[in-house]
């Protein structure tokens, strides 16, 4: 670009920005939002930027004698960005975004622990010709890392005021606002750094060289770098093979912990709901209300809540792993595989968060700029093991290996691995068929290792627990009621059991009441539905009652646990049944008296739930993020086919090897 045109452009920008707003700008994760919250407190509002999916947060702030609107912009790496949210933010900074005030000043947040890359963006922001005040954030972390920053020299290099802050604690914020007010009052435009002022054109390379020079002259190491141990650990944890093995070993360890820690509270909860059910049975007069509560609501809600300890333990462990800095290493190892199969590097963040829930994960895939990359990522995300699958996994594990946490952990690890492998294979397939293009790679920045915070981990577990209980108390409760009704109505004619028939039943170990209850169940709506679909699911090793569970769980997968707890409770002798779930399922028999949950059936059932698309809200989000029902329908279809086929192969395969 010629000097003249650059200068005239700068002049026109400078005249355009006579606005009144103040905008927070930085690389992602430099602390804008934290700073924004510190400054505005609770007074901010979130609005949708017209015509985009961009959420813009703004709030009033008193600067000098004027109250101005402060905006929290999306994170940027460069002002040359091409598309989407970034484009909007860049336009806003230049005062060109419709419906937004132009900035009177920009507060540029720099992460003191990450100066080089942050200064790259700074070099571009300084060119805008708007008064800039730098908030040098994360000063606490920089200090911990053993570095000091020479603020005055930095000011000289940048040609604008620099105020050190710790956004998290709020220190330095008052001074920042004061300096900002002065800069606005004086109309203080930054002096462009010399190295950049004279160069034409300003290349990326030059910007980095400038950034490195600046950092070299302002960064003072006060402690010797403690990189040695980190480097040694990283060499091992990031090793393509060793790192992968460690990753699975860590997963295995976490699951082992879950089963050994959670089994006792789980039994207690199960027993408590069992006793509650028996107590209700003895207190309420026999009739539909008693049945609704004792046979529908309590087993339905209790059957799911039994797994609360597992969920809390898992999220506690994940938080600890994240805090130590290990999770980023694991992501890095997985990222290498991602790129092999044709997923964009940026997909790893959504894939990580998909382990909690696919919905935020699909929304997080917005960080992937390329439309095709994003589509592939969205399509495969629901294959990752979300927290709604945990009760199902835990149920199967409890059925198969009730007494061995070691085997349980192995099964869990295998289940997670299967979800991951399925996701990667499908991505590979889609990349070669549906959307042909090459994905954009990504470099990940590794946080330093540190001691985890138990408090953060406890909070994470508590948050999950709250969500889980809320869901049990709303959606699961409602579905349990409806399911109970479908299993109890319409009432068939009471079958009369002759004495001889009762005797022959008794020979098979079935009581007469149990037999009539089963007859009634077969006559109900749910029973008819189950028998209708039985031919489709019989090859997977399921009886019709599992079929009812599968149908019931199409809107939300964990419902299957409630459904099975209710449906296998029918006709069960109350007194001995102090357990609501596991004992019931273990005792469940097919019409011929063989157990329902054999090894092969359990495995096939697990495989089905790992792969099946059973979450309505996820489909809705896919529709929203892809803009077409077509993709949501495709996602549902391919996952259902995949789940059915894999479960079929698992069941029939095991039978071929003589395992039933």
């Amino acid at each position, binding site marked *: 670009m010629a000097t003249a045109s650059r200068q005239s452009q700068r002049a026109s920008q400078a005249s355009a920005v006579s606005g009144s707003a103040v905008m927070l700008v930085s*690389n*992602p*994760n430099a602390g804008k939002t934290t700073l924004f919250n510190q400054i505005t407190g609770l007074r901010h509002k979130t609005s949708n930027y017209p015509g985009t*999916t961009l959420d813009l947060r703004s709030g009033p702030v008193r600067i000098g004698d004027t109250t101005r609107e402060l905006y929290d912009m999306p*994170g940027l*790496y460069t002002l040359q960005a091409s598309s989407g949210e970034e484009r909007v933010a860049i336009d806003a900074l230049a005062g060109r975004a419709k419906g937004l005030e132009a900035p009177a000043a920009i507060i540029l947040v720099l992460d003191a622990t*990450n100066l*080089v*890359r942050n200064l*790259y963006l700074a070099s571009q922001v300084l060119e805008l010709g708007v008064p800039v005040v730098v908030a040098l954030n994360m000063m606490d972390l920089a200090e911990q890392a053993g570095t000091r920053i020479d603020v005055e020299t930095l000011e000289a290099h940048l040609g604008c005021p620099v105020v050190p802050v710790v956004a998290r604690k709020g220190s330095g914020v008052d001074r920042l606002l004061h300096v900002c007010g002065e800069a606005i009052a004086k109309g203080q435009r930054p002096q462009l750094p010399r190295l950049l002022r004279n160069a034409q054109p300003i290349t990326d390379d030059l910007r*980095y060289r400038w950034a490195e020079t600046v950092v070299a002259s302002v960064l003072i190491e006060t402690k010797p770098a403690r990189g040695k141990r980190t480097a040694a650990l990283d060499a091992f944890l990031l090793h393509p093979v060793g790192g992968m093995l460690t990753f699975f070993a860590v997963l295995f360890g976490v699951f082992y912990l879950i089963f050994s820690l959670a089994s006792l509270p789980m039994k207690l909860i199960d027993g408590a709901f069992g006793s509650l059910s028996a107590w209700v049975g003895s207190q309420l*007069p026999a*009739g*539909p*209300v*008693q049945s*609704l509560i004792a046979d529908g609501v309590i087993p339905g809600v209790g059957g799911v809540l039994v797994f609360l300890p597992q969920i809390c333990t898992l999220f506690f462990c994940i938080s600890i792993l994240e805090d130590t800095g290990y999770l980023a290493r694991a992501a890095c190892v997985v990222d290498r595989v991602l790129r092999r199969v044709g997923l964009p590097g*940026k997909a*790893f*963040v*959504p894939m990580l*968060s998909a382990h*909690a*829930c696919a*919905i*935020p*994960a699909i*929304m*997080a895939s*917005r*960080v992937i700029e390329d439309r095709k990359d994003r589509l592939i990522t969205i399509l495969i995300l629901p294959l990752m093991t979300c927290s709604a699958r945990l009760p199902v996994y835990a149920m199967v594990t409890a059925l198969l290996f009730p007494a061995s946490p070691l085997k349980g952990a192995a099964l869990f690890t295998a289940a997670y691995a299967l979800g991951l492998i399925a996701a990667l294979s499908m991505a590979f397939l889609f990349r070669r068929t549906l959307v042909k293009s090459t994905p954009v790679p*990504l*470099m*990940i*920045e590794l946080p330093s290792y540190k001691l985890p915070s138990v408090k953060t981990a406890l909070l994470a577990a508590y*948050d*999950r627990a709250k*969500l889980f209980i*809320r*869901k049990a108390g*709303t*959606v699961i*409760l*409602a*579905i349990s*009621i*409806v399911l109970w*009704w479908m299993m109890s109505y319409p009432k068939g004619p009471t079958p009369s059991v002759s004495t001889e028939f009762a005797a022959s039943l008794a020979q098979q170990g079935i009581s007469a009441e149990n037999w009539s209850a089963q007859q009634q169940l077969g006559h109900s709506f749910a029973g008819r539905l189950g028998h209708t679909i039985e031919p489709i699911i019989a090859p997977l090793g399921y009886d019709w009652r599992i079929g009812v569970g599968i149908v019931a769980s199409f*809107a939300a997968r964990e419902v299957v646990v409630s459904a099975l707890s209710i449906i296998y409770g029918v006709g069960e002798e109350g007194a001995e049944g102090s357990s609501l779930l596991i004992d019931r399922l273990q005792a469940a028999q097919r019409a011929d008296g063989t157990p329902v949950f054999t090894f092969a059936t359990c495995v096939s059932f697990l495989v089905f739930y790992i792969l099946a698309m059973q979450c*309505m*809200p996820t*489909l*809705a*989000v896919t*529709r*929203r993020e892809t803009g077409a029902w077509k993709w*949501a329908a495709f996602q549902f279809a391919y996952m259902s086919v995949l789940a059915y086929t894999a479960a079929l192969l698992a069941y029939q395969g095991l039978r071929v090897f003589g395992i039933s």
Partner: protein
Amino acid sequence: MSIQQIIVNLAVVAAAVFLARGIYRSLSAARRNKTPTCAGCNTCEAAKKEPTPTKP
């Protein structure tokens, strides 16, 4: 109909309406490009955090 039967019917209808409303909401939210009602957690905020690439 006995009182018990009436209570049960009311509960079932209420539950069915609650579920239908949930389904309707998430479908129509998707159509209007609003965030569908998910589990209601706040992970979305956390998930929006982009990864930080290092210098190329």
